[in-house]
């Protein structure tokens, strides 16, 4: 706890700088990463991060010193060339985009390594600290770096908010965007340039591979929680910034721990948590939903079978044995006992020594399912002109999905029919 207070009191100016820096950086890259994610170009960011290495090395060789402006210009240029090469290769040849991305990534990076090792062998590399571009050194962030991040963040924010609608449209529906006369290619280039800018500014602090994570992972995490672009950007910026904070804190408490990788670990944890636990899109909630559907289907099928047996006998509520039920419709053993258990819990059937019988509320529920089935068959037959022998399988699935509103609509459309296409009575409760 003491270290936590110490950390947040920011008595150590260095801690403040690194915290602010990773905070800004996390937010900037997460924001631009959202658009890359939605345009399914997450890995392009990875490729660009690798591809700026030769630009930096060449800028260093030309400038002969570590002038940050020249280095950033070099990085931007080679990042752009990489971006354009990927686009050109994947659009104009049979090479697929994954190959184009991997090719540009590895060849540019290899070229960068070649130049970098040359600089190192000539003895100038160590003072230049060009190694930082590979693994990053978040701990050695300077006030100047933080200022750069703040400026880049501001630029990103201004550009994104002035072209928000356009960017949104080209991310979700580029075809429509071009049909309404938007300059899609220019906008795409603009958007990608923002990504290149974010990568270029961030790479010194976190390194090549981890920069890719800052772009991709927050967006992937945020996507699980929302389907609105605005909240997705906000959320992923929060994830990015908070992960920055966590990483800095961990490397503050354990000085041997590198900041960058811990930022990525925090991010990955957020992503994993989101993918598993997010409501609606999370794995758990989808599993729960699937189980609910399965339960609904099996119980409704048993009810329907019992109702139809009752119809055959001319009276509902008689005892039906398992044998008769299995003969009517072959249920899987395990599903059947699950369905019976659920039906008894809901008091729709009661157990008797020989089998089960429907209760009054059970009959109502069963007649609802049968009604939906037959109404749908009627609809398919009358309105969609399908043959009477073609409609049963479709009705078997739809009967579980039809809502009361659709049911009312169907009755209205069909004028409350008395009998279905197979000449069986459609049961109404009121």
């Amino acid at each position: 706890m003491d270290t936590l207070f110490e950390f947040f009191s920011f008595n150590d100016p260095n801690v403040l700088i690194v915290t602010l820096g990773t905070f800004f950086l996390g937010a900037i890259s997460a924001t631009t990463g959202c658009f890359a994610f939605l345009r399914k170009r997450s890995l392009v960011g990875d490729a660009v991060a690798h591809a700026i290495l030769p630009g930096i090395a060449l800028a260093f060789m030309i400038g002969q010193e570590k002038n940050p402006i020249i280095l950033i210009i070099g990085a931007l240029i080679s990042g752009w060339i990489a971006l354009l090469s990927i686009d050109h290769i994947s659009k104009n040849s049979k090479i697929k985009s994954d190959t184009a991305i991997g090719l540009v990534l590895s060849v540019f990076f290899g070229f960068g390594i070649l130049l970098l090792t040359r600089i190192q062998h000539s003895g100038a590399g160590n003072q230049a600290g060009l190694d930082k571009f590979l693994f990053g050194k978040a701990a050695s962030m300077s006030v100047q770096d933080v200022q750069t991040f703040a400026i880049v963040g501001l630029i990103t924010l201004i550009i994104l908010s002035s072209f928000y609608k356009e960017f949104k449209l080209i991310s979700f529906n580029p075809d429509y965007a071009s049909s309404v006369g938007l300059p899609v290619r220019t906008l795409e280039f603009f958007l990608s340039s923002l990504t290149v800018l974010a990568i270029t500014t961030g790479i010194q602090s976190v390194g090549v591979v981890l920069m890719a994570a800052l772009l991709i992972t927050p967006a992937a995490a945020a996507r699980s929680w929302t389907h609105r672009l605005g909240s997705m950007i906000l959320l992923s910026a929060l994830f990015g910034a908070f992960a920055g904070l966590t990483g800095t804190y961990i490397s503050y408490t354990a000085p041997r721990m590198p900041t960058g990788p811990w930022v990525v670990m925090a991010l990955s944890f957020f992503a994993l948590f989101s993918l598993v636990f997010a409501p609606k899109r999370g794995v758990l909630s989808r599993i729960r939903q699937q189980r609910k559907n399965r339960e609904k289907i099996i119980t409704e099928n048993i009810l329907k079978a019992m109702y139809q047996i009752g119809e055959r006998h001319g009276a509902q509520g008689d005892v039906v044995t398992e044998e008769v039920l299995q003969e009517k419709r072959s249920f899987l053993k395990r599903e059947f006992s699950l369905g019976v258990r659920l039906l008894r819990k809901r008091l729709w059937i009661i157990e008797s020594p020989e089998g089960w019988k429907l209760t009054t509320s059970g009959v109502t529920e069963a007649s609802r399912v049968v009604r939906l089935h037959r109404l749908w068959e009627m609809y398919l037959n009358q309105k969609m002109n399908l043959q009477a022998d073609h409609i049963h399988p479709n009705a078997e699935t739809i009967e579980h999905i039809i809502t009361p509103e659709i049911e009312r609509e169907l009755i209205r459309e069909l004028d409350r029919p008395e009998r279905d296409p197979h000449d069986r009575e459609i049961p109404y409760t009121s």
Partner: protein
Amino acid sequence: MSLNDLYILVTGSAIAISCGLLGSFLILRKMAMIGDAISHAVLPGIVLAFLISGSRDNIPMLIGAAGFGLLTTVLIELFHKKARLQEDASIGVTFTWLFALGVILISVFSGQVDLDQDCVLYGEIAYVPLDLLIGPDGSIWGPRPMWIGIGLLLMVVIFIIIGYRGLLVSTFNPAYAVSIGISASVWHYLLMGMVSFTTVVSFESVGAILVVALMIAPPATAYLWTGRLRRMLLLTAIFGVLSTIFGYYLAVWINGSVAGGMATASGVFFGIAYVRYRILSNRAIYSNGKHNEHAISHPEMDKA
């Protein structure tokens, strides 16, 4: 050319051919970036194997790395299929996470792990001639990495010869493969296993990222040149060897990393093939729309 140069060239070529042959199948399956992901994600496997076995022995390293390589593919598939995360993002999330884990492990155990980050990145093929294999009777059998490279090449070639039909059919037509009793997923995992294995073996010589260059660039070059799988594999091998030779002398000339030189050379060959391809396909468009073999998709598709 001295004997040392020859050793380096043979080692480099063996690795380049092995990577390229497997890479051909990766790019045809649109899985090039999975190869990239594996090459990053084996890092924690190598570090763990290092810590557990306490040595730089090859066997534990291979097991650790191959394990993490397979874990990577399984995780990517889990995120993609179960969590419905789009594929590019699930690749990105998985490998960056595992790579970060590897870097953290290295810094935590920096005292115990004699693995420096530079070696992971560039590899040290220039030191190949120094690491000699000495026979039981004390005679020198040549550099150890060279024999490892040749062994790797043999394994990959045997794998492809034996599995040619399975790889071919499961690559171009997975549904058909299943219908004639070839399991597409078995071949998927076999290929992934071989890719992880090759990555680790090549690691020491050419480094993590440059393995990817050798896996993607020569096959992509060959793919632009031909539409037939057998010819593509042959051309891949040739471009792999050419990249090694030109790359080595390029690196010597400008006094840089050999692996970087090899990647650069492979990129230059791709550039040449790309320009040729563009000229040919433009000419094909203007010459009465005549059918151009370079513009059609894979003819092996029809055969399978």
